[in-house]
């Protein structure tokens, strides 16, 4: 069996296995799996509206996935995407509502602000890692909590003690009546295009540029990179900062698209942590991340329809997703099985 075939089959089989076990769980808990999955399907594809919402849901996952993946590719574990995303969200929302500018300037500016805010928030762990070898995982975890409190405080300031900031001006919004009309008032917005650009950007950066080469080298072997004359510290910081910029843009998707503002957060958004799953579903490859985000976002969004259409708790979807991740992660065993199978087929011929 060809490598490519296997690489495609493994995730497919994993998804099927996940759904099957999910079905069993539903059956055991006295639900009808068919109804459940029909509801799930409808929640994803029923009509233009749900599809619009599905895409909308996918968009921020692409960014959080890219952020985590980029860090992994450069030998860092950025568990702080959550916090960086929140800071990006805040920055974009503020720029979006505080200024009045022509769209060609305002929108890019807001996006830029988000990227910068995320990057800044990621610079801290990057710097501490590079200069003092402080473990990035703790620092980023701590900064996640810090981000929530700081954001809430600033929202209070910006909105004069309110619960949420004003909506961003039309000139900074990613929404488009055209898209909403087309999808019967879903919140689909142009962010998806930005996300796709980001995917290509990350691919290009890692696979086609000198910087990407350095970042990967440093990620794999700091000593050899130093011997080859690379600036290891600079590269560590840079890797973290770029990762943070992706995360920040993920926040911008919410600030300029989905919500067009930011409200005080009672808890983490979860998008950042899900980003870890998305990244690893996509094997830390940019296009893999895209697929991972599609799978993740689609299931999450479709799951919302399960309680109302089939009376099944949404948690079942998370269970299925978790299982799928396990199976994909354990792809080794599936690969072995497939190769055995492939061999047999050969011998028979």
């Amino acid at each position, binding site marked *: 069996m060809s490598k490519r075939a296997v690489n495609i089959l493994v995730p497919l089989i994993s998804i099927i296995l996940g759904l099957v076990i999910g079905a069993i769980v539903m059956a055991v808990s006295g639900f009808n799996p068919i109804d459940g999955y029909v509801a799930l399907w409808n929640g994803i594809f029923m009509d233009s509206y749900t599809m619009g919402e599905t895409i909308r849901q996918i968009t921020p996952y692409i960014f959080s996935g890219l952020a985590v993946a980029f860090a992994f590719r450069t030998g860092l574990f950025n568990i702080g995407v959550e916090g960086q995303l929140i800071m990006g969200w805040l920055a974009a929302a503020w720029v979006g509502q505080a200024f009045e500018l022509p769209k060609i300037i305002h929108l890019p500016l807001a996006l830029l602000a988000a990227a910068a805010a995320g990057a800044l928030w990621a610079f801290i762990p990057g710097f501490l890692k590079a200069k*003092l070898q402080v473990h990035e995982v703790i620092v980023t975890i701590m900064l996640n909590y810090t981000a929530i409190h700081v954001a809430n*405080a600033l929202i209070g300031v910006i909105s004069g003690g309110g619960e949420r900031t004003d909506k961003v001006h039309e000139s900074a919004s990613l929404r488009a009546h055209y898209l909403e009309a087309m999808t019967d008032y879903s919140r689909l917005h142009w962010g998806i295009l930005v996300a796709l650009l980001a995917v290509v950007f990350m691919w290009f950066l890692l696979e086609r540029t000198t910087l990407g080469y350095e970042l990967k080298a440093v990620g794999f072997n700091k000593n050899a990179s130093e011997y080859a004359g690379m600036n290891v510290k600079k590269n560590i910081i840079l890797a973290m900062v770029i990762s943070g910029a992706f995360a920040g843009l993920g926040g911008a998707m919410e600030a300029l698209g989905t919500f067009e503002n930011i409200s005080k957060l009672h808890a983490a958004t979860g998008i950042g*942590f899900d980003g870890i799953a998305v990244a690893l579903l996509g094997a830390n490859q940019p296009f893999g991340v895209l697929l991972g985000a599609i799978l993740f976002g689609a299931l999450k969004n479709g799951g919302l329809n399960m309680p109302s259409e089939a009376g099944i708790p949404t*948690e079942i979807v998370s269970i299925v997703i978790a299982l799928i*991740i396990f199976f994909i*992660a354990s792809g080794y065993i599936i690969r072995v099985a497939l190769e055995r199978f492939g061999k047999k087929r050969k011998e028979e011929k």
Partner: protein
Amino acid sequence: MSFLEVLYFIIPSAIFYAAPLILTAIGGVFTERSGVVNIGLEGIMIVGAASSIIFNLTFADQLGNATPWVGLLVAMIFGILLSLILAVAAVSLRADQTVSGVALNMLGLAAAVFTVKMIYDKGQTDAISERFSRFDIPLLSDIPILGKMFFVDVYATSILAFAVAFIAWYVIYKTPFGLRLRSVGEHPMAADTMGVNVSKMRYVAVMISGALGGIGGAVYAQAIAGNFGAATISGQGFMALAAMIFGKWHPLGAMGAALFFGFAQALSVVGGSIPYVQDVPTIFLLILPYVLTILALAGFIGKANAPKASGVPYIKGKR
């Protein structure tokens, strides 16, 4: 508040805040020492919390005030069961350990809430009637000053946490099991050539973290929250992870780190009523615990080395 009063408050509340983190973090120490990264601690805590609360609500009448303790055992068992999934994936199936951990967190939360909805058909349980309660340690609590700091209003579970920390230290550094555990985490192939069963060691280690994580979650649920909902455990698992790294993968270090978190947390709570401090904007008090931690790391903790083989699946004959 006078300085002494502040201490009387900070020390006990730091300890009660730290107890669940200590237990969970030490679980983490065991896994990572064996070369398995476990960021699934959060999920394990959640399952521990849920199972203990459900058990508690169901059997409180029969078991009376023994309930929470039995609840710990139940949580331990469920914690182990959940951790086994990680063990199978990460050790036997060579899955990426971080991915498996993330999946474990998702699965833990979803399964717990799903079960609660199935049983009570609502997402949040009622309050339990049999909680862990505090007591004064006889004699010791009468010691002037110190008594009031350390031996008044003590949770038995806090004592448990400290005990576990020291036992863990002994096991990891003084027993054959510990030596093998660490060798497997540093250089699995070497351990293998010396006849140590790498997979077995890693399974055991992951299950220990399942047990301790489950207990940690149960302690939080049965001593502090008093019920279970989707938000009961929100982030404690990650704090435990941080405590483990902060503590340089050493049981006592992890204990110290967890206490440090508790201390910082208590400081931010009490800050509002200390002269001068109360004048600083509350936001600074809110982020104090996290900023303090970062400063501590940057300042004097500095570099910490994870076990060399941590995160790497062991495959015979591969170099």
